[in-house]
Structure formats: structure tokens, C-alpha cells
């Protein structure tokens, strides 16, 4: 199959169009803006709707409205913009509306900087807004996956009637790689709940207000049951040379590809390293850690943050193996410095 050279953000946007996304609502922010620009060019010709909203608050509420019509819709932003969207994401999660939210992430806190970052991990995996809810979070590691995971994200969103987030460090949005452009796959999801006008049926209501205590609790139980199901079905990770590894490095996104190089480099230097790359950040692939917690002597989380995913790893191994952390912000750790870390660990621990 012929490959095309594409930028990560454009591959993601094209993936959305392939998945049948026909509504984009966004507000410009580096390093995500190419997604909006691509959609602004392409959607009108496809009979879709593109709106540059006045703010991320408005944009996510347009997604709320758009999704309630049963149309596949999305928004994309970065750090400060994703913070503003949290109100809407909470409403969308409770209203059980499918949609895609993309965070091409940059450094924070505050205005931070436009350097690639993974420091929105907590915000993405803990729900982010108010109330007991989760969103499925997918972390692509290259341009092909920017497209493929986007297509999949819309299916997950429709299957579980839930917002799905794609978290990609800014680099992923902006590097170019040759990719295979996928063919559209028609999947039909019945959406009897959609707000389309009540012709020939009873009125539909999209609502998140539950004043009665028992109903509020019931709604929460229903959501939790759905999250349990997602946890059962959708945990995903890639493993690399983990079987005989003394030290397991854990990294997601583009960071994981960089770590792969360090793992091989460490092996050349006699250190048996392996990699676990979570693909779903929520649900966190804790099962992939069961075996290595018995066989490995050490786990090292490498993140472009001051240490967030490391907490989920510690919960996953539950004290059975020590978990260390190496991270930077403003910079992406390079293969040499990670290799160096691995050699130092091996020397210190004597493996």
C-alpha cells in the first residue's frame, strides 16, 4: 500500500473525517491548531460543520450540543484550553454523549510553554472536571497511530456513549511520517436518544440534573458500571522485551518510542531492560504489570512531567517491585540520557 507523508495533527484530523466526524468546534492554540485548520478546509466540502468558537468553553459546549444530535463531533486543544473544557466534559460524561476530545499537550502549569509535555496525565485520567466520571484516554506514539487511534476513538465513544480523549505530546502533532491512509469502515450505531425533533416519537431529553438523592446515586452507579465494563474490555498496552528483563521501563506516547531505543542500547551494554507502553492511559493497563512484578527487579517510569503515571504504576505493582521515576519538563528525555539512567540503576542495584 502506498504511504503518504503527513503531519501528526493532519493525520489525526483526516482520521476523524474517515471515521465520519462531521462537526468540529475549537479555539486555536499551539501545538494543536493544525487540526482545526485542516477541519476548516475539509468539513464544508463534506457537508459538515466547522465553527471557530469564541472560547474553549463555548467549543466544548458546541460539542455537547453537536453530539446530542447523534452526529460524530470533536474538539482539539492543548493545556490551558483543555482546562477550560473540563466543565463541559463533566456534563458530556454524565449525559453519556459520545465525542472526541484531543489534547496535543504542552508544558504547564499556567500558560507554561509550547514544549511537548505529558503533564496533563492526571487531568486526563482522573476525569478532570467535577464529579465521579472517567474518560477513555488513548495515547498514540506515532503519526500512523494519530490516525488509527482517532478512528478507533469514535467507535469507542459510540460503543460506550462516552467522551474519549486522545493525549499526544506536542511533538506528535507536529512531526511528519509516512503513513497508510485508512479506508472508511461503515459501522452503524443506533442513537435513539438523539435530540433531533420529536417527530413520530416521544420527546427526548438530554439532562444532567438529578435533584432526587436516590436518582443521583442511581445515575452514578450506572456510570460506574459502564466504567467497570470499559476496564474489563479496553485496557491496552504494548510490551517489548519484558520476559527476561531485570528493569522495566514504562513510557507512553512518542516518549515510548524514544525509550525503546534506550532499552536496546542498555541491552547492548549488558543491562536486561524491557518496555511497557500503556496505550490506554485510562483504563490503565495494570494487568500487564502482573507478570513483571514477579520477574523484574525494578520498574522505571519515564515521563515528560514531574511524575504522574508513576502513581498508577505503583498502584499496579502494589509494592511487589520498587518503582523509580525519571522525568523532565521543557525537554523530552533523549535515548542517551535514559540509557545512562538504566546503566546507573543496574550498577546501583547490581543487576
Amino acid at each position, binding site marked *: 500500500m502506498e504511504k503518504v507523508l503527513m503531519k501528526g495533527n493532519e493525520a489525526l484530523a483526516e482520521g476523524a473525517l474517515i471515521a465520519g466526524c462531521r462537526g468540529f468546534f475549537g479555539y486555536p492554540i499551539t501545538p494543536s491548531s493544525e487540526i482545526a485548520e485542516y477541519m476548516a478546509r475539509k468539513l464544508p466540502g463534506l457537508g459538515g*460543520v466547522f465553527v471557530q468558537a469564541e*472560547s474553549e468553553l463555548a467549543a466544548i459546549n458546541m460539542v*455537547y450540543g453537536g453530539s446530542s444530535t447523534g452526529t460524530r*463531533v470533536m474538539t482539539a486543544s492543548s493545556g490551558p484550553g483543555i482546562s477550560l473544557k473540563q466543565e463541559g466534559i463533566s456534563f458530556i460524561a454524565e449525559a453519556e454523549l459520545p465525542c472526541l476530545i484531543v489534547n496535543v499537550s504542552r508544558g504547564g502549569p499556567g500558560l507554561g510553554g509550547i514544549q511537548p509535555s505529558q503533564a496533563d496525565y492526571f487531568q486526563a485520567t482522573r476525569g478532570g472536571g467535577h464529579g465521579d466520571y472517567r474518560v477513555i484516554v488513548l495515547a498514540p506514539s506515532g503519526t500512523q497511530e494519530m490516525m488509527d487511534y482517532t478512528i478507533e476513538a469514535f467507535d469507542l465513544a459510540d460503543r460506550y456513549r462516552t467522551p474519549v480523549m486522545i493525549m499526544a505530546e506536542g511533538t506528535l502533532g507536529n512531526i511528519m511520517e509516512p503513513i497508510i491512509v485508512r479506508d472508511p469502515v461503515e459501522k452503524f450505531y443506533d442513537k435513539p436518544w438523539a435530540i433531533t425533533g420529536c417527530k413520530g416519537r416521544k420527546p427526548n431529553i438530554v439532562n444532567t440534573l438529578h435533584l432526587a438523592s436516590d436518582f443521583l446515586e442511581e445515575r452514578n452507579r450506572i456510570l460506574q458500571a459502564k466504567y467497570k465494563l470499559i476496564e474489563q474490555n479496553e485496557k491496552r498496552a504494548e510490551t517489548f522485551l519484558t520476559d527476561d528483563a531485570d528493569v522495566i521501563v514504562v513510557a507512553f506516547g512518542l516518549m515510548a518510542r524514544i525509550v525503546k531505543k534506550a532499552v536496546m542500547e542498555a541491552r547492548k551494554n549488558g543491562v536486561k531492560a524491557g518496555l511497557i507502553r500503556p496505550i490506554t492511559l485510562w483504563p490503565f493497563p495494570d494487568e500487564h504489570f502482573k507478570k513483571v512484578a514477579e520477574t523484574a527487579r525494578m520498574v522505571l517510569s519515564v515521563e515528560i512531567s514531574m511524575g504522574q503515571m508513576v502513581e498508577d504504576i505503583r498502584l499496579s505493582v502494589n509494592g511487589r517491585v520498587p518503582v523509580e521515576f525519571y522525568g523532565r519538563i521543557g525537554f523530552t528525555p533523549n535515548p542517551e540520557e535514559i540509557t545512562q539512567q538504566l546503566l546507573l540503576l543496574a550498577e546501583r542495584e547490581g543487576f
Partner: protein
Amino acid sequence: MKTVFKKPESLTDAQFHYCPGCTHGIIHRLIAECVDEMNIRESTIGICPVGCSVLAYDYFNFDMLEAAHGRAPAIAAAIKRLLPDRTLFTYQGDGDLASIGMGEILHASVRGEKICVFFINNTVYGMTGGQMAPTTLLGQVTTTSPYGRSKDNEGYPAKMAEILAQNEGSAYICRTAVNDPPNVMKTKKAIKKALQTQAKGLGFSMVEILSTCPTNWGLNPLDSMKWLEDNMIPYYPLGELKVKEDR
């Protein structure tokens, strides 16, 4: 037998929860009558706000969505663009529309979104217990302006109809009141004109409706009507502020 009065089909049988003398109920009915008369119930979608009318989705007998505080115009705009042949309206209070939702309402009008906005101005935050709103009048005492609103401290009350009428995207802007039967009838006319403006695709429309909140004003229903006439109408003059006849 000839029927001379009946409940509009666009209202459900649910009982309104509004306080005695509150005008939210009158306005619900007027909207429902207009939707019935235009025969658009099955293609109408309403967005309710956060405020006393948050439960409006239980009262209107067509598809409804309940918005986050102030965001109704963004939601309505997205739905209208994806389903252009449906009729979209938002129903919003003054805290919802003129305070937390100022961005959303202003830009819905700037972009000329083809939606109708029914704006219930009762000069206070009814639902949360009578706090000051952007529309609270000078000198008016509320729980968060206990010494009366002053121009130096809280600033002047916001005139939303005048503000929105300036935008090219606004096709129909009108201010009415529901203090007496003639004004109730005028309000109904304005609501219908707003819906017709949308049907013709002319642009954004808003009817600002001066309303009462006897509970938080601390007045009985009748005195509330009088207070509206004596204090609100002089500051918020009634009438059409913008009427676009064609595209």
C-alpha cells in the same frame, strides 16, 4: 361544543414548580402557544438554562437539552448548524445570560446564529436565593448588594437588548414585559416574530422579557407587577430595537 381554551400541546401535564406570582410559567405558556400555532412542535428543540427554569425540560413537550450555566447559546448554535431545518431556542435568566454566559450570548449574536433566545430578566438570581445580577437596578437591595447596588461599586445594570441590537448578526431584538394582559399579548407577538425570523433564516433573535421574582423581591405578586412597572420599565424601555426584514 367549541373549544375556547386549552392547554397547548407543546406543554406536558407536569405541574410547574414556580413560586406563586412568578412569571416563568406565563412565558413557558406563551412559547408553547407560538410553537403550536406555527405547527413546529415536532421540529423544535429547546435548551434550558441553569436557574429557576432549569426544569423546563419537564414542561415543554418536545426535545429538550439542559445546558451548563450560561452555555445554552453555544449548544443551540451547534445543534442548529447540524440540523438547519429544526427550530432552536434557548430559555435563559439574567444571571445565566448576562453574567456567566455573556461570552456565549454575545458571540451567538455576532455570528448571527439562527437561533431564538428568550431572555427572562427578573433582576436577580432567583434560584440561588436572590443575589445580585448584572441586571439588578441601581439602589436595588439584594443578598449580595445589601446596601443597594451602587454605580461606583457594582456598576450600572446591563442593557442586553441594546447591547445585542448593535450586532449585524442580530436580526430581531425586542424587549417586552409580562406585567399586564396587553403586555403579555405583545410578548407573545414578539416570541412569534422571533421564531418567524429564524424560520426565514434572517439571523439571531432575542426577546428580553421583563419578569418578576416575588419570592426574592420580598413582595406579593401584585406589588411585584407594580414594582416592575415603576422601576424596571423606566430603565429597560419596551419595544423593538432591531428588525431585519430580509437577508
